[in-house]
Each structure stands twice: as C-alpha cells, then as structure tokens.
C-alpha cells in the first residue's frame, strides 16, 4: 500500500492510500483531493498538477525530464527550483511507497 500526504498552506493535510501504482496527480484527482487539477490527464502538457515535494523525498524521485523541466516554467504558483515537480510524473506504488507534497496556492 502506497501512501501520499498532500499538505496545504493552512497546515491541513489529506492522505491517500493506493493499492495500485498511480501518479501523485491521478491519485489526487481520483480521491477528490483539492488543488491538483491535471487538466491534460498526465501528458506534461498543462502544468496544472504542480506540487512542492517535502524534504526527505526529493532524492528518491526520478530526475526531471526535459518536457517536465520546460513545463515547470508555466506553473501558476511560483516555481521552487529545488522542490517543484509536476505530480503526474511522480508514481507511487512501484519503488516509491510514500511521499509528502505541498499543494500550491493555485494551479490556473
């Protein structure tokens, strides 16, 4: 069982547990987690699934791909050079069993 914690600016959190592999974006959308849009469905086309990855998990993630790198230039909330990722590119349940991300103020 993989576990994702979504943290908000006001300090509240929402946790999702997944029995099957899924991206952090897809898991959020399916569980009705607010603040993650994923308008393009995970094609790295829209940058509306932006998250800030919590310390302690960054080095366990795959490298940022070229498309993700460029699309991170159009996030609605400011990019953090270290912690910003597109959550459609982070998969839990295959190698990564837990992660905590901060949901930005806005995605649009």
């Amino acid at each position, binding site marked *: 069982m993989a576990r994702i914690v979504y943290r908000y600016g006001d300090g509240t959190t929402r946790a999702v547990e997944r029995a099957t592999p899924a991206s952090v974006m*897809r898991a959020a*959308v*399916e*569980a*009705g987690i*607010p603040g993650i849009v*994923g*308008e*393009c*469905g*995970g*094609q*790295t*086309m*829209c*940058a509306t699934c932006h998250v800030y990855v919590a310390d302690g998990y960054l080095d366990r993630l795959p490298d940022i791909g070229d*498309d993700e790198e*460029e*699309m991170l*230039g*159009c996030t609605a909330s400011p990019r953090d050079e270290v912690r910003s990722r597109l959550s459609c590119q982070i998969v839990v349940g295959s190698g990564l069993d837990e992660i905590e991300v901060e949901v930005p103020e806005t995605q*649009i």
Partner: protein
Amino acid sequence: MRVVIVGAGAAGVQLADSLRAGGHQGPVVLLGAETALPYQRPPLSKDYLLGREDAPPPLRGETFYADHGVELRRGRTVTGIDLGHRHAVLHDGERVPYDNLVLATGARNRTLDIPGAGLSGVVALRTLADADLLRGHLAKAGRVVVLGAGFVGLEIAAAARLLGVETVVFEAADRPMARVASPPVSEFVTRAHAGTGVELRCGTSVVEIVGSSGAVAAVRTDRGELLETDLVVVGVGATPRDELARRTGLPVENGVRVDERFRAGAPGVWAIGDCASFPDLHTGRRTRLESVQNASAQARTLARTLLGDDTRHDEVPWFWSNQGQVRLQIAGVRQAGDRALPLGDPAGGAFSVLSFRQERLVAVESVNRPRDHVWARRALAGGTSPRLEEVAVELGL
C-alpha cells in the same frame, strides 16, 4: 439558486466544481447522457487506445460529487427546455426545475455521407464506448484506413502504427491539420508520420466504403482506386450539439449562440464549451472551440458570473496533440492568411511557428518545444497581442 447543468463532460464537471469552490450553496444538478463516471476524453485516442490504461482518467473521483453536494445523474438525457416554467425536460418526461440552466452538451462527430458509411467496421471516436469498440477492431485489423488528418485522426493513426497495424490516412485537403496548423507544422507532421510508416494521402477523398457480408472490405477513392481494409475510422471533425437550443427556439449559429457572458438568449440559460459559439475577444468574430482547456476555462468564468462576479473571459485558448514522437502544443488561434514565422529548425525535430495578423502575435504552435509554448501562453495572456517588433526583440528573431 438552483443550477442545472446539461452535460457531464469537461465543461459541466468543471462548472460544478468551480461553483462549489466559489461558495455556491444552492443545489447543483449535473445531468449526463453517458452512464460511465465522467472521464477525460483526450486519452481515448492515445494511452487508452494503446491499452496502457485500463480506464481513462476520471474528471473527478467518484466521491467528489457526493462530497461537494453535486447531484450527478448519469444516463439522463435532456430532450427539452420549458423556458416559461424553467424546467429541463428529460427523455422520460421528468422535469428538473432550474434557476440557471447551463448547456454544456459538447459536440458530436461529423458523419460521412457516402455509400457504406453504415457498415460494420466503420467507427468514429468520441466516447469510451467508441474507444472500446475501436480497440477491439484494432486488435484484429491488418490494415486501418483513417478518413481525415485532423488531431484525432492522426493520433489514432500514430496509435495504430504502435500496435503494428498498417495505416493509411486520407485527407481531402492538401495538407494535414489544415484548419488549425500552419503549413510548416503540417509539413513536419507529414514527415514524422511517414517516418513511422503511416501512409498519408492528402488531396484524396474516399467516395465509397465497399462492404462484404455487411462488413468493411475496401474503400474507393475519388481517383477510382480500391484499397482493401477491414477497418475504417472516420475523423472528419465535429459539429456542436445544439439541437436542444434549436428545439427551444434559442439562437443558434454554428452552436448555441452566446454573448460575451455566455448568456444563451433566454433568462437563466447559458452555454459553454464545445457547443457554444461566442464572440472572440480579439477578433470580435463569432467562434467556437473544441478543447478541454476552452471547456474548463469557460466553466470557471461562468461560475464566477453566476456567483455575481462580473469578470470578462479572456483566457488564451491552448490545445495539444500527441502523435507518436510529435508533441504539438498550440497557444492562440491562427487563421488562414496569418503570417507564419518559424523559430528553431524543423529539421532538428523541435521548432515553433509564430503567427502574426496585422503585425501582432495571435498564435504559437510548438513542436517538441514546450519552452516556446510556455512563453506564448504568457505573451498572449489576458488578451494581449504583442507587436511583431516586440516579439522580435524578445526572442532575438
């Protein structure tokens, strides 16, 4: 205030979401003709068709609707509007009262009016059911003939090649995606598909689908050629689902005719998304867009309007298409006759085309260059349209 939304696609679902997010307290009823949990359509011609996903991603999780007090009613078709009583009338006669009724009915595939169009093995793609049918056919097809080289036709062609199916695409126009793309992008896409073995025949129409025992056996072209095939995919565009408006006597003009606030011509009736024709902020011309982004963006704007905030809709439209190794992203809407300036080198597989109208930037198509797309969305944001010389200085053209 009771809001009834007709259509549970990208526009309808986003509207329900934005109404709640904006603090709307009254009832929200979301009526969808399909029985599946509302889902994202774009993957149907991409990952879902390839079998990389068991189900298309839902637009929202199953619990979203109950959690947010959205009454989602699936398998419910609205067949009439009683403007006097403010009722939506369903197929079984049920009346659903509204204060505000939002038409988010989307589009339907244009059909071909040629002999054999009704044969088994002639399919089109819009719904999940269509995708399942197409997947089944592709699994056993030796060759597929795709009619129409637009986004969907070419996405299906790319998927068919990845599945090892021989693929021939017929396009009546002289180049692929002629309606939305500039000539350099069409040229690049033509070469890219040729590289994966798609046979793209532009300037050629199929005039007949030839059957054998009720199933597709071949297509006949306007040049008299007969090409054997067991599967024909029709991707010749879409028409707005505006019949409800038409039947109700609301103004229709290539879709439900709305004003700049999405008002559809009767008190409390609105229309957004693929089904709505609206006055374009830049050109003033009536326009209708078929895209996820347009559907969601109009839904967000209308939600604000319904909640009493009089904001103008000025989001720059953007589109995307994944065709094998081609990642195409478009910001803005170009027209035939716009001046096209290339940025980067198509031979290198990554470039953009900037389109100018009267020396002002109106659209940017990016092939495998997300960075330019990101720039374009910012440059065109909020209804701005930078001048050619400003763009030239900024980009070093």
